[in-house]
Structures are given as C-alpha cells and as structure tokens.
C-alpha cells in the first residue's frame, strides 16, 4: 500500500482528531484570504483615486470642503454654488497652470429623476480633469444633450436617464474605479444649463436663481493644476485669504485616505500573523497529542518494516492533507463572504474600494494555501520526528502494562 493511500484511509476512516486541525486550517485560510483580498481592493481603489484626481487644488465655497471630499471618495450627492468671477483672479495667480470650473448638482429622490445621484458638469473648453479619462475609456467626446454615466448608475430601459422631468441619452458608461466617480453622471455645461433650468422649476436654487447663462456666472468649484516647480501649498495659502472660499489640496486628501487605508491594512496584517502563530501552535500541540495516542500504531508499523522516515512522511502527509483541505474550504467560504458583499463592504469602509482581478485572486489563493499548509506541515515534521524516533521494543512493553 502506498504512503498516500495509508494517509487518506487513516483520515477518512480513522478517528484521529483530524477534524480539529482541519477546522483551524480553515479558519487561518479564511482570515489570510479575506484579509489579503480586502487589502488589495483598498490599495487598488486608492491607486484609481490617485490616477483620476487630476487637479492639485480644489477651490470650493467656504464650508464645503467635506462635501467635496464626499463627492470624490464616495459620490455623496452635493450641490453648492459660488461666483465665477473668481476664475480670472485664479488664472492670473503666479504658479497656476490651468483652472477649470465644475458644477455639482444633486438629482432628486422623486419620480422626476431616475436616481438620486451626483451630476457633475464640466467645461469642455478648459477641462483637464474629466475629459482625459472619459476619452481614455471611450475615445470620444460628449455630444450635445448626452450623458456619461458612472459604472454604478442603473440606466432606464432604453439607455436613458431622466433628471428633473427631462430624458437624456446615455452615450457611454465609464469603467469601474471604486471611487465616488462610479456613482456620478458627467455632463457638459450646455447640458448642465438645461438641468439647472429644470431643477429650478422643481424648487432647487443654484446661484442667484436667474435663468439664461447661469453657468457663466456661477459654478460649484474650481479645479487648479499648478505649474511644475511651483508649491501648491503656497498657492493654496494665497487663495484661502479670500474669506468666501475654502481650499482642498489633493495631496492632503490623498494622504488622509492613505493614512486610513494604512491603518486598516496594518490591522489586517497583524490579525493574519496572530492567526498564523495561534494555528501553528495549536496544530503542533494537536499533532504531538495525536502522535502520543497512536504509539501502538507506530510499533506495529515499525515491526512491519516501516522506517523512521516512512512514519515521519506519513504524519507529515496527514497534516498536509488536512490543512490543504481546510485551506481550500476556507478560501471558498471567504470568497462567499468577500466577493458577493463587496458593495456592502465598500459602503461600510467608506474608502475607495476596487476588487482584484483574476490573476491577483489566484495569487492570493495560492499564498493562503501555502501559509496554511506550512502552518500544518511544520508541526507535522516535529510530530513525525518524535514518532519515528520512538523505540519499537519499549512501545510494545508499554502496551503490556
């Protein structure tokens, strides 16, 4: 009989306490896999955020700093307005390379609107933030009266969306980013003008509430790119002397996200390593215990001609089979917890969250299996060596007592 057949038969038919080792391996593999997937998803979300942030500085109405961060990070619907005359002043500042205005408008949770979401209006003449990655995704520019929808926006039946009683065609849908951009709709200022007029009829005030050319006079924020070599901090300081506006620096926003994700990542790593240590210790104790309770078995095997190495390999193989099976089941269970609930997790964490691709999932799975099997194999070697070294004659004498 081959050694692997002996090991399998012992595990399937023998009552050798294998289930405890299996359960601990399952627990470890679940923790490692789920932890690594969460960590990877947060890191990828942050990379997407960094790539698509575009501007160095955002100038928003005084008191709207948190609202702006909410739009970027989680797509929370916000609307605010400020005088557009500031644009020329910003353009004239030393160190400022580009300035583009944007308008934020929140749609309503009512029958006039398909979904309550954030509508972002951008000026195609000056834009340097939104257009590059829209055309990167689709190689096209928005036509008049068309919308570009984020990945998480549900469209009406015939690829349209209705806002404030007017229906718009959705020209394209953006790739998923895991940031607030997925929950937003993008329109040019021409379309935004129509929307603001319709919104006014529904009681939403923007700017001074006048009709024609409102986007020429009022906007929600200015996005600024600074010249290379210029200090964004200094420019931000100069802008914030204006008592009507607040300044949000992308660098600071990114660093607050990085810090938050860093804390979560560190916590996940600590939990993983604590689990590795606990499971390895418990498996070692269980393995030694099992070896001691099977002393007669070793004696019989030794008398039948089994060498020390054969017994060591048998115990090692038993542990590898148990921890390997536990690792695979742990990954399956962790997948059931992590992947279907990814949107819920993303909402709960409130950080950019973008799930890993197939290759990364395979790498994480292999890593989890390796860690789990090692945590079973190392105690297996220790226990196997102990079993192999026990003397056959003493064991048989032991049995007579």
């Amino acid at each position, binding site marked *: 009989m081959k050694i692997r057949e002996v090991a399998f038969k012992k595990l399937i038919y023998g009552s050798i306490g294998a289930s405890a080792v299996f359960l601990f391996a399952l627990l470890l593999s679940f923790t490692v896999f789920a932890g690594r997937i969460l960590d990877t998803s947060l890191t990828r979300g942050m990379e997407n955020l960094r790539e698509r942030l575009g501007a160095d500085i955002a100038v928003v109405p005084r008191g709207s700093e948190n609202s702006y961060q909410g739009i970027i990070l989680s797509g929370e619907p916000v609307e605010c307005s400020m005088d557009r005359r500031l644009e020329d002043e910003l353009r004239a500042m030393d160190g400022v390379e580009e300035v583009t205005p944007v308008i934020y408008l929140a749609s309503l949770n009512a029958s006039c609107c398909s979904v309550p979401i954030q509508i972002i209006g951008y000026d195609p003449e000056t834009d340097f933030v939104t257009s590059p990655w829209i055309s990167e995704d689709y190689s096209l520019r928005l036509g008049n009266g068309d919308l570009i929808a984020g990945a998480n926006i*549900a469209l009406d039946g015939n690829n349209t969306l209705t806002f404030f009683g007017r229906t718009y065609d959705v020209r394209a849908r953006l790739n998923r980013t895991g940031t607030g951009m997925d929950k937003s709709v993008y329109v040019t200022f021409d379309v935004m003008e129509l929307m603001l007029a319709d919104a006014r009829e529904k009681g939403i005030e923007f700017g001074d509430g006048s009709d024609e050319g409102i986007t020429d006079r009022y906007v929600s924020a200015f996005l600024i790119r600074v010249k290379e070599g210029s200090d964004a901090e200094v420019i931000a300081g100069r802008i914030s002397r204006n008592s009507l506006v607040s300044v949000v620096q992308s660098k600071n926003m990114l660093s607050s996200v990085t810090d938050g994700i860093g804390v979560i990542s560190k916590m996940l790593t600590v939990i993983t390593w604590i689990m590795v240590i606990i499971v390895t210790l418990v498996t070692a104790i269980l393995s030694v215990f099992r070896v001691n309770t099977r002393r007669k078995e070793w004696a019989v095997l030794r008398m039948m001609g089994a060498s020390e190495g054969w017994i060591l390999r048998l115990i090692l193989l038993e542990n590898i089979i148990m921890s390997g099976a536990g690792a695979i089941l742990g990954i399956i269970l962790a997948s059931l917890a992590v992947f*279907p609930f990814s949107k*819920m997790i993303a*909402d709960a964490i409130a950080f950019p969250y973008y799930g890993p691709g197939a290759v990364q999932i395979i790498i994480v799975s292999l890593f989890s299996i390796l860690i789990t099997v090692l945590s079973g194999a190392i105690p297996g070697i220790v226990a196997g060596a102990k079993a192999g070294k026990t003397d056959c004659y003493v064991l048989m004498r032991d049995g007579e007592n």
Partner: protein
Amino acid sequence: MKNKILAAITAVLGLLAAIGPRTLFPVCSAAEMKMKCYYAANAEVAVGIIAAIVGIAIILIDKNKIRITLSAVQAILGLVIILIPTAIIGVCGSPMMHCVSTTKPALIVIGALDITVSVILALLIARDISIEKKTR
C-alpha cells in the same frame, strides 16, 4: 447523526432565506412603490419555507431512499433561492440600492451553502445505502 446535523443546517438555511429578506438583510422599503426586490422577497418566503420543511422531513424520515430524493430536492431549492434575485425576478436596477448590495449577495451565499450541504448530505446517504446493500 452527521446526516441529521446537515439536514438541520439545510432547514435553518431555508428559514434564513424565508425571513432574511424581511429582517436580517432587508430589501428596499416598499413605502412609496413596490419594486422588484419586494416581489423577490415574497417569493423567497415561499421557497424558503418549503426548503425548511424539506430539511425537517430529512431529519424525521428514516428511509434512506426518500432522504436522498429529498436532499436532491433541497439542492434544487438552493438553486431557486439563488435564481430568484438573480434571474427569475431580480432586484432593483441601481447597484447603490440596499437590496443589490446586501439582500442579493446574502441570498446567493445562502443558496450556495444550501446546495453544497445538500449535495454532501446526498453523498453521505448514498454511502449509507451502499453499506446497507453490502451488509445484507
């Protein structure tokens, strides 16, 4: 004993599928208008209760041939639990709705677990049947 524990698990999963969409992982509120997820939750009540009854029947019935048939039925019910929010009725369109982010994945997980446990149960009962035949 092992088989009875597994059968009890399938009964609990059926019960979860029945009451979960109204309590633990609720669908969207139907205060303003009834959406797809509302009807999906209603359908899950019916399927979940049947799954719970089938699970209890597997515990109570002794004849292995009937138990293995019921296990197969339970696996099919697990599949239906998954198909109601994904294909047969569906849930709300927007990925931002609670029924999409919570109820649907919860029902998929419950259905998948129900199928897995039912298949393991069927295999164990099949093993018992083959042992019975050998000992005769």
